[in-house]
């Protein structure tokens, strides 16, 4: 969380305050703690070291006086953990490993990928990379530069390096953990030694991440203890360690039961989509969130689907099944413990062993890539069970399925405007395919909630998606479809706090008449001045399809002017296509209106991203 310097308590002049605001602009928790440590060090040594020296060394929390030297001497006895994280999961895992390593007395530094100075790579001895994969095999935004560097020609040979990679992903996407895989292969290719096998964590992160982390700690302890018997150099203790994340009262393991306040369809009846505005009460929970955070929803699978799966496999739902030391009725496993809508590749592999079906087998070969993509894209679990008959035992079936992960929804409200409520914008997945009805587990769960229902929820912070700390900055929000959700929260927040910066929203959907989400609210916001510009792209209202990226290009000149003047750019929504198209449009705008080369435009956007001025919440 970044904060505005407090005018009343601070000893600074207006000028210094403004400088401080600029300096802390867009910094995340880690960076702020780092900074607090650095400044504390400056104070303690009373010897001013230029900040750039510290930054170049990129040491966790060093004594400024010894920055450069420490970097040199520590590198061979130090564990470096680089993480790339979009939604915070990879960051959380990396933090946990760092915490454990630190607890074990190891010299460890934790660096976000875009803060990592790639020049140091050649000197590293022990490196763990924890990184997620987005959409169609993309790196998280904060690791784009890191991944590009590693893949490129400038990457150094790394014979001295020992490494291990933990990838995170979602196995319902064909490019599951692709970035982790790519880095793992590339580091080996550069001559580094793989300490142990890559981890590929699915939505149930812990089942892979926990053993991987355990092994990582053991290996690090062995290596670093062996190489460096001396205790690590003293460091300034920051006000609060970034590694020790605070523990919220309600978690995914222990969610808060939030009473449902409203479940209102906000797409018109003859539209193609069913979009809901859901309001939940957080009263009494003590839960707090910032615009940009996500709400985790612990879902229950559709009972009808559970029945269908049981019937298809001729299973008795009441029989007890034990897996991973837990015993539940099979029905309970399928209702609340296991993913039974979206398919995963590991399940398909297990299913193929039992189905002995040539088509399925082929889809799992390298040549069957397209067929696999189609399977994962179009089929739900029930379709596979029906299409490729197979004999399962209940125990094996439960074991092969992924744990049912909570669903994350970008929060569509600001607490300053709605108090103890949290609002969501939910696209209800409900369609006919292969002759039967298909639903999305979470959206169906939310859409069919009875009026007096409680919804198990927790807050998932998203430090990467925050309004500018400097409220006089302009913001550009690009959120087609339900991607508009966080921007409802942003605009509420900016209105409530009287932010001086202007707000520009880009929205798109198929039809003006049926799919203009929150239309009346935007109209009101435009009228009362809390929204300054609204550009619309309704793709199917004319013969040629028009999307948000077209709106962006149409407004290229003005958009570039805003960005050049310090505006922050936010993108939320579909990762597979929209985010790419928007990124390409932004690059072209920078080329055309900023007079930059293709490469410079790329750097410009990467720079914006590393300054947290180009943030994405895409899924």
């Amino acid at each position, binding site marked *: 969380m970044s904060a505005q310097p407090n005018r009343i308590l601070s000893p600074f002049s207006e000028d210094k305050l403004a400088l401080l605001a600029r300096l802390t602009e867009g910094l995340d928790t880690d960076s702020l703690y780092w900074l607090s440590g650095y400044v504390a060090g400056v104070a303690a040594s009373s010897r001013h070291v230029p900040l750039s020296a510290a930054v170049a060394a990129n040491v966790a929390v060093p004594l400024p006086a010894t920055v450069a030297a420490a970097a040199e001497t520590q590198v061979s006895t130090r564990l470096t953990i680089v993480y790339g994280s979009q939604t915070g999961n990879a960051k959380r895992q990396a933090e946990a490993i760092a915490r454990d390593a630190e607890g074990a007395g190891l010299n460890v530094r934790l660096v976000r990928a875009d803060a990592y100075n790639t020049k140091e790579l050649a000197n590293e001895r022990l490196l763990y990379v924890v990184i997620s994969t987005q959409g169609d095999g993309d790196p998280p935004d904060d690791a784009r530069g890191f991944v590009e560097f590693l893949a490129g020609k400038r990457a150094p040979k790394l014979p001295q390096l020992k490494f291990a990679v933990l990838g995170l992903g979602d196995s319902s996407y064909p490019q599951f953990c692709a970035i982790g895989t790519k880095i793992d292969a590339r580091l080996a290719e550069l001559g580094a030694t793989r300490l142990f096998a890559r981890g590929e964590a699915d939505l149930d992160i812990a089942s892979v991440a926990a053993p991987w982390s355990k092994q990582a700690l053991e290996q690090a302890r062995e290596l670093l203890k062996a190489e460096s018997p001396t205790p690590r150099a003293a460091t300034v203790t920051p006000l609060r360690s970034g590694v020790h994340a605070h523990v919220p009262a309600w978690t995914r393991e222990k969610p808060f039961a939030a009473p449902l306040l409203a479940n209102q369809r906000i797409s018109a009846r003859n539209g193609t989509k069913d979009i809901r*505005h859901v309001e939940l009460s957080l009263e009494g929970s003590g839960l707090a969130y910032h615009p940009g955070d996500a709400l985790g929803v612990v879902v229950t699978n559709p009972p009808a689907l559970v029945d269908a799966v049981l019937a298809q496999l001729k299973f008795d739902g009441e029989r007890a099944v034990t897996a991973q030391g837990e015993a539940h009725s099979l029905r309970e496993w399928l209702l609340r413990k296991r993913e039974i809508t979206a398919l995963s590749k590991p399940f398909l592999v297990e299913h193929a062993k039992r189905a002995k079906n040539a088509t399925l087998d082929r889809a799992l070969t390298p040549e069957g890539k397209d067929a696999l993509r189609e399977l994962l894209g179009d089929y739900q679990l029930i379709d596979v069970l029906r299409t490729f008959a197979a004999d399962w035992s209940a125990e094996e079936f439960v074991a092969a399925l992924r744990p049912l992960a909570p669903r994350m929804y970008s929060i569509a409200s600001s607490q300053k405007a709605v108090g103890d409520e949290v609002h969501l914008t939910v696209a209800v997945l409900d369609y006919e395919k292969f002759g039967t009805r298909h639903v999305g587990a979470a959206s169906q769960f939310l859409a069919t909630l009875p009026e007096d229902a409680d919804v198990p929820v927790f807050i998932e912070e998203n430090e990467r998606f925050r309004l500018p700390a400097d409220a006089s900055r302009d913001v550009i929000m690009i959120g087609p479809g339900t991607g508009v959700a966080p921007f409802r929260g942003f605009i509420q927040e900016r209105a409530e706090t009287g932010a001086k910066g202007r707000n520009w929203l880009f929205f798109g959907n198929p039809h*003006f008449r049926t799919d*203009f989400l929150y*239309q*009346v609210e935007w109209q009101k916001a435009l009228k009362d001045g809390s929204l300054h510009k609204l550009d619309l792209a309704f793709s199917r209202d004319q013969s040629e399809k028009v999307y948000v990226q077209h709106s962006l290009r149409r407004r290229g000149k003005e958009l570039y002017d805003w960005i050049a003047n310090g505006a922050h750019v936010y993108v939320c929504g579909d990762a597979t296509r929209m985010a790419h198209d928007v990124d390409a449009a932004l690059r072209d705008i920078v080329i055309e209106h900023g007079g930059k080369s293709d490469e410079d435009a790329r750097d410009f956007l990467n720079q914006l991203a590393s300054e947290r001025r180009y943030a994405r919440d895409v899924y």
Partner: protein
Amino acid sequence: MSTTAPALSPVEGIKTRSRRLRGTLLESLANEVTGAIADDDTQLIKFHGSYMQDDRDLREERRAAKLEPDYSFMIRTRLPGGVVTPEQWLKLDAIAQRYANGTLRLTTRQAFQFHGVIKRELKATLQAINASLIDTIAACGDVNRNVMAGVNPLQSALHARIHDDAAKLSEFLKPKTRAYYEIWLDEEKIAGSGEEYEPIYGAVYLPRKFKVAFAVPPFNDVDVFANDLGFIAIVENGELLGYNVTVGGGLGATHGEPATYPRLADVLGFVAPDRINAIAEAVVTTQRDFGGRADRKHARLKYTIDDRGLDWFKAEVERRFGAPLRPARPFRFEHNGDRFGWVEGTNGRAHLTLRIEAGRVADRGEHTHLTALRKIAQIHADENSGLEFRLTPNQNLLIANVPNEDRAEIDEIVAEHHLDLYRTATPLRLNALACVALPTCALAMAEAERYLPDFTGKVEALLDRHGLRDARIHLRLSGCPNGCSRPYLGEIALIGKAPGRYNLMLGADVRGQRLNRLHRENVDEAQILATLDGLFARYAGERSGDEAFGDFLVHAGLLAEAHYKVIPVTLLEPQAAAA
């Protein structure tokens, strides 16, 4: 120039500031965030022939969904006398399919209405209409609206002449502003844009709408007495001598406001055919200068006349006309309905009047009326065919000038597509009128068009009980008291008060010369049917000869006194006028 009475109505300000009806229409059209136009522009767009509406069936649902109302636009054509060629019919049909709700609505003022055109396609739609050589200028608004002309098929030679006079007057009274051409047809602005000279209307146009009709006795299909200005053709030995001029008709009223009322026109005098424009100018400019501009509910010509007296009004008009009006000539109307079926014309041509229920030409189920008329239009699309489509003032359609050899083919098409209601329906169903009302009309308080078939069926069942199936009773349904379906001239009329509730009006004549009166206030269907049941019983048992239902109710003393003026029928009879 105008009477500077109390504060002007807000609409007067909008007109004044509008730069000759331009307002901020261009900006409103460009605003992508809403399907609506700015409030002030909703007043101005009427002058361009369009009303902004919304689907009231969806209003509440969309409000809950955080969506604005489902706005769309009704577009009405200016079509003097209601005549189009087959080629034009085809174009209008295509426009309805492409831009509107797929139906053509024939109005009680012989115009076409398109419903459900969205803002984004408004301009394209108006361009397409203009490409069919039909415009929409002044089809609505505080100006002279579509000029009506009787379509009596028995007088086809005379019809051409009357229609011609109506068209010329419509042109004469058309606003001179170029706003329409600039906004919709991309005409370049020229010097003086926004300050055009309006010789008839002045800078602020009229206080309220203005309606003109031409009637040809013995038919009063146009309901000439319901118009601000009327022309009754005086014909002797097949020759048009001139017109009796009527003034001050108007049917709008407001529930609960006794100061508002329907009024039938007075007969002012007689003019020669070459003096039509002159007398019209005198009447319109008198209304322009003396009409009320403070309260739009008290602004029609009828109130100007009643407030100042007919004598004053006549003197003022004569002063502007430049001469005393000659006395009115005797005339006689028989009825104000349509004459259905085939009628022989001259030169081997015939005319067919088709019943179009509530004026809605649509394809619904096996009733593929649009398809039928499209076929007929396609067959006769040759511009030399001479065939015409004429919209009657009673929402029906006349196919005129059909060569005798083509009659059989048309009969076949009409039968195949179940467009032959004119042969099968009861007189009640044939003559009923209904305005559009819900869901699109903003003024509607109750159903009308959608309720008409059902209600008619229920009244038919009552008539059957009393052996009155063949009684020709004029029924008119209106969703509100503003009078689009001329409900105050129905022998039986329902005027909407609230969903499912109406004022039951009874006792008009069948010639458009006597207004009906309120019989039961704010009643539901059951009460209406029970009331009619009793009255039908009396009518079946007590009527004398071929006495019409409305006349019977009056003569039998079954109705209360009307609180507004009823034109004494005898005054207009030839013998009375001669006396």
